């Protein structure tokens, strides 16, 4: 038995070492979420349309395609535009299945609520739910994360505006 485990393990290890690099968040990359015909969001939605992961992958896909069309990856332009509140609704449907094993769904739900300027009670409840289930999570509080991201986006906008003003000049 040990021999079988070793042979299988060594084969897999050789493959792992030969691949260029492994990303921990490989399912959030454009290749995984947007590749025509084989992206995880579409594949899982066809296989298991009502399951938590399917809704969550669709939310990730929508998040990748949200925003001005010209700024989204080319694959997004072949898809229907992301509707207002679509990401939030998809995460809500994921959470409504009762599956609590996707920590990022809980975490991102709070984040999306912050992005949508939802009522503070809703945000607090979402964060409480995430903390209740994952009390030892090392992730930054979504409020703090949102604050940092908002600041960096504003900083980016200022740079963009500056560039625009420079060019206009």
């Amino acid at each position, binding site marked *: 038995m040990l021999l079988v485990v070793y042979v299988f393990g060594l084969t897999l290890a050789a*493959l792992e070492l030969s691949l260029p690099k492994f990303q921990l968040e490989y399912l959030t990359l454009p290749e995984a979420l947007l590749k025509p015909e084989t*992206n995880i969001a579409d594949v899982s939605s066809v296989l298991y349309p009502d399951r938590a992961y399917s809704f969550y992958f669709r939310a990730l896909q929508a998040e990748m395609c949200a925003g001005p069309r010209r700024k989204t990856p080319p694959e997004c332009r072949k898809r229907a535009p992301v509707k207002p509140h679509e990401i939030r609704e998809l995460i809500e449907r994921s959470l409504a299945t*009762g*599956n609590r094993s996707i920590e990022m769904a809980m975490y991102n739900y709070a984040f999306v609520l912050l992005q949508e300027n939802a009522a503070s009670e809703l945000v607090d409840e979402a964060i409480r739910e995430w903390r209740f289930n994952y009390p030892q999570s090392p992730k930054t509080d979504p409020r703090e994360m949102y604050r940092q991201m908002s600041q960096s986006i504003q900083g980016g906008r200022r740079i963009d505006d500056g560039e625009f003003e420079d060019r206009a000049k």
Partner: protein
Amino acid sequence: MSLGYIRSPTADLFWFVALPPIALAIAFFFHNSLPYIAQASIAVWITAPHHYAGWVRGYGLDEDWQRWHHRLIFGPIVLIPSIVLGTALVPITLGIVFLLWDHQHSLMQQYGFARIYDFKAGTDAPHTKRFDFLLSIFLYGNILLTTPLWSELWVAELYRWDAALHVETIQLIQATSWMVLGVYVVVYLGHLIVGGVRGNRINPMKYLFLTSSYGLWYFVSYQDSFLLYLVAHRIMHGVQYILMVYWYVENKAERTGRTPLLLSNLNLSRYLLLGAAYAIVYHFVTGGNLSLLSFGLINSLQSDPILNFSLEKATGFYAATAISAAAACHYYLDSYIWKIRDPEIQEGL
């Protein structure tokens, strides 16, 4: 037909037939009422003690030590450095190997119990072993390939290896798996009928046990909750193993008249208490914290909107409760175990 039991009719019906649905009920309680982190407490209180039972079984019996001492010594010497290297160099491979090994280990445990049922009932006909083994492989393999819980996992994993599949390919794999299982079930039934014609008997307890075990696995694998699987499976697997080891050691001692020193005073309560002690030591040695021992209680105290305890306060509450409980038990015990007027106590003075 011929009945045979691992322990006794009542014990077997409870621990091998009723335990899986009971474990499911407990899992649903976890799913509906406890935080997700509470499933980790099952690993602490059930899985770790089942490892301890394995140590007792592997290293606690002189006879086994004499038979297998080379394996018992060199196995860990080969395995542990491999794991250290694997963790450092190929962690994903190590994770996949361990996941698959865990599945193989789980199915082999139930297969082993099924073999014991045939052994006990004298129903171990020629080729039964092979037919049962293949039945286990096809039944369990089909769970991994076709059920949503596990399909989601391997389908997603393929993206990491840049080997994503089309929906049609996945559906083809799953349909093939069901077909192979269906064909094999027909073959298996044929084997039973032919065996019956030849005068071979079967032990219905074996099939009740297998139905209950695979019923649990199939049921949780169709649910949209990994927590249900983690809790129900760990309870079934761990509890059955812990008991099996205890019964094995007890039977050995009774039948051979030789009880190893380590196990000479090991009644069931002490065996379980030692398992719990092992779990606590193992938990803290591997860097675990108090929170995981408490089924999420400490964290619930913190996240409760009314109590809103700080970590220190929640830990303090837990510690104060534990200390008070220990003290209360101590006071209560001392109130009756030291009665000097009692002749039986006088004997010890």
